């Protein structure tokens, strides 16, 4: 029917589920996405994604008819601000594409609506039974506790987070707890766009190398080396789904692991599948083979691993 889902190569018409770069590339004839996603895409520095495309913002629960006769409807997805699932109804069949998704309440952004469907396309970034994450309340408590502990002993707490989503969630949490917070580069740049969605970020300031003590720092993972090399007494926390296993210490260089993700843990994925009632499931991203096999063997669902473009770790 001519609508592509999160295509990373140019196509005539493309649905962009959310603004992470492994789901959104430019050069399409038409782009359909939520208004917030479009706002984030406009701010992207690496690529003029929207240039030359017809932009069609889609509100939640407002069906749009395509020339083919299919009807598409955006549904809320908990992942990052602006993330949406897409329901496609055609010839009496309901197909649901989750995009990146979690089931637990996020610190920022919408909560997931479970949508009944016949055919589900779901991600499996963390599709192994070892992956289980903190709730947003638990994660917020751990973030605040680590920051206060470091500040009270005179060291500088540093949180590693990706520039869109995780970074702002950490800043938002620290600001609400009244902890002085400095924010680095790309994360800071995307805070105003989150404020347009109605979240208040008060009291943070831009990162200043000459003035670090007494403040929590939120930076992208690539900036860790610079801070460590500064010779300042930094202690590093990694807030990520990958932090659910200890070897994340070696991978990230962090000492404190806070297992909180904007993706679903294993049980959440199962709950989404069960709630959808889908008889057929395509699994994309991550542990696709294992998760599809588990669905076949334990749910008796026609499930298979599906190939998508390059998977970039955006947890």
């Amino acid at each position, binding site marked *: 029917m001519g609508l592509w889902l999160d295509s990373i190569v140019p196509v005539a018409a493309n649905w962009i589920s959310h603004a992470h770069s492994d789901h959104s590339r430019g050069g399409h004839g038409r782009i359909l996405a939520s208004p917030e996603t479009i706002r984030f895409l406009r701010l992207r520095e690496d690529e003029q994604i929207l240039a030359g495309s017809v932009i069609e913002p889609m509100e939640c629960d407002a069906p749009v008819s395509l020339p083919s006769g299919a009807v598409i409807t955006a549904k809320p997805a908990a992942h990052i601000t602006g993330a949406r699932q897409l329901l496609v109804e055609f010839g009496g069949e309901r197909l649901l594409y989750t995009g990146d998704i979690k089931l637990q309440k996020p610190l920022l952004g919408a909560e997931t609506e479970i949508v009944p469907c016949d055919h589900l396309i779901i991600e499996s970034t963390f599709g192994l*039974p*070892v992956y289980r994450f903190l709730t947003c309340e638990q994660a917020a408590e751990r973030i605040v506790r680590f920051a206060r502990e470091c500040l009270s002993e005179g060291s500088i707490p540093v949180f590693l987070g990706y520039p869109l989503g995780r970074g702002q969630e950490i800043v938002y949490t620290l600001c609400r707890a009244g902890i002085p917070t400095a924010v680095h580069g790309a994360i800071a740049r995307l805070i105003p766009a989150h404020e347009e969605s109605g979240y208040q970020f008060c009291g943070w300031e831009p990162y200043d190398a000459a003035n670090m003590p007494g403040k929590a720092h939120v930076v992208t993972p690539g900036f860790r080396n610079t801070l460590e090399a500064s010779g300042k007494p930094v*202690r590093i926390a990694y807030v990520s789904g990958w932090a659910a296993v200890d070897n994340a210490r070696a991978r990230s260089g962090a*000492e404190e692991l806070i297992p909180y993700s904007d993706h679903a843990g294993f049980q959440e994925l199962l709950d989404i599948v069960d709630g959808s009632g889908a008889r057929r499931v395509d699994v994309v991203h991550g542990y696709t083979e294992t998760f599809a*096999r588990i669905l076949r063997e334990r749910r008796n669902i026609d499930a298979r691993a599906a190939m998508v473009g390059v998977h970039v770790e955006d947890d």
Partner: protein
Amino acid sequence: MDALAEACERVASHAGRLAKVAALAEYFRTLESDEDLRRAVQFLLGRPAAMAPAVSNLFETVEAPKLALGYAVIRDALRAASGWDDETLRVCHREVGDGGETVGLIMAPFTAGEPMSLERAEQLYLQLHAMRRADARVRMMTEIFRTYRPLTLKYFIKAIGNSFRIGLQEKMVEEAVAAATGKSAAAVRAANNRLGDLAAVAIAARHDQLDSIEARLFHPMDFMLAKPLEDGAAPPEGVEWYVEEKYDGVRAQAHCDHGAVAIFSRGMEDVSKSYPELVSALGRVPGSAILDGEILAWRDGRALSFTMLQQRLARKKLTEAMQVSIPVVFMGYDVLYRDGGLTLDQTLEERRAMLEAAVNDAASDRVLLSPQAKLADVAEIPARYEAARENGNEGLLLKRAGSLYEPGKRGGAWLKVKRAFATLDVVITAAEQGHGKRATVLSDYTFAVRSGDQYLNIGKAYSGLTDAEIREMTKVLRDIAIGRYSRVLLVKPQQVLEVGFDGIQKSPRHKSGYALRFPRILRWRTDKRAEDCDTIERVQELYQSSLNLTPNRVGDDA
């Protein structure tokens, strides 16, 4: 055990050594009973079911319990307790990289979450140990998995695996004991050197009785170690050195007490059972003594190759025929204890005199004295080295005049002189993830030599590259991967390594028909292509020439 597991998590979550020690000390302070302090220290050192080492003499042998559970038991129990299939568990274990952690994560939704005291943990370890049948162990382990808290299970299993992998060395546990009891780290360390039992030292420290700790016979102490002297380098000047030949056997510590004898290995294991003739010969040492030495296969006044000794050790049951065909001796190096007192703080010369007297008094052709001479000039070293090799020994051991015996140290008062047998340029054909810190990188490499246009595997090595090189190598190898077999990634033969090794043997284990002894990576030869690597013909030559020499070995080194 629950609190110990939580303390271990806190230790793991601190990067700094001081913070790790402080977190552990804080936990030790919460332990009210001496018994719990003992258990906690033992578990932390990965000795969950360790008890006093056995005493052996001519009339009885008591085996020291040691808990060894294969991964198969843990996997079978995990399958039964969680309901997950082997393939899912395999993928999970691969991603997590640690057995105990995998158990904790997998069981989290299924356990009853009951508390486990340290006392209970010890009972469970001892019960598991006492079980002979694998299926009984699996049943019991399944029940354990279903019952206790996930975090506790994680460390319960890690303790069996001998290592918690939380960046904690025995030295840091000593420091934590010191901090928790208000003693100096040096005093705790010294007491532990004397006693070789940190759990007992911790209790003594708490009761202010560190000074009363005396070395106890039949508790193995750490061995003093020799620092390698680089090929061709001279030892530091301005001091005098004694020189001995460096033997290629099994380093051992003999505890003798008026006829009762126990022999311990470097791994602190009681190995007396393997050497009944030495137990009997050492029983003739008068009074009491702890002797440091080397066990060697020996005939006609010289050491037989280490391979001979290995053949004897490989047998499940030591037969009398084997004792006759491969006789052994205890070659005395040093003395650590004599007639009621430690001799560590006496000089090398004083200890040597005591050792000579003890060996002479034993008057046995199975208890020998390592010949020692004063080194008049460092220029003698090459000739002495050649002579040692001629005698079938590994190289030389230099001991600094006037030095003390420092258990567990590789401080430079002893130096070993030896050289790599040869080096080969080899090409990597497969790679595997390591463990612990190296679980996410490819750090173990299988390598091959060239035979025409084919590459034949000859060995495997996992040490020698820096962490940065390993990360870089991981990227390169993933790009040239051609397949996967379980944990093993097969790669195009492209990357060349220079490996050093200590000998060549024939071996059916590798395609080439040869195996290298103690291969280690010397360099990553980015300047060489696969076609430039060494050939099977070169390996055959090296093997032929090695037949004329006694094999050299980097062993459980002096």
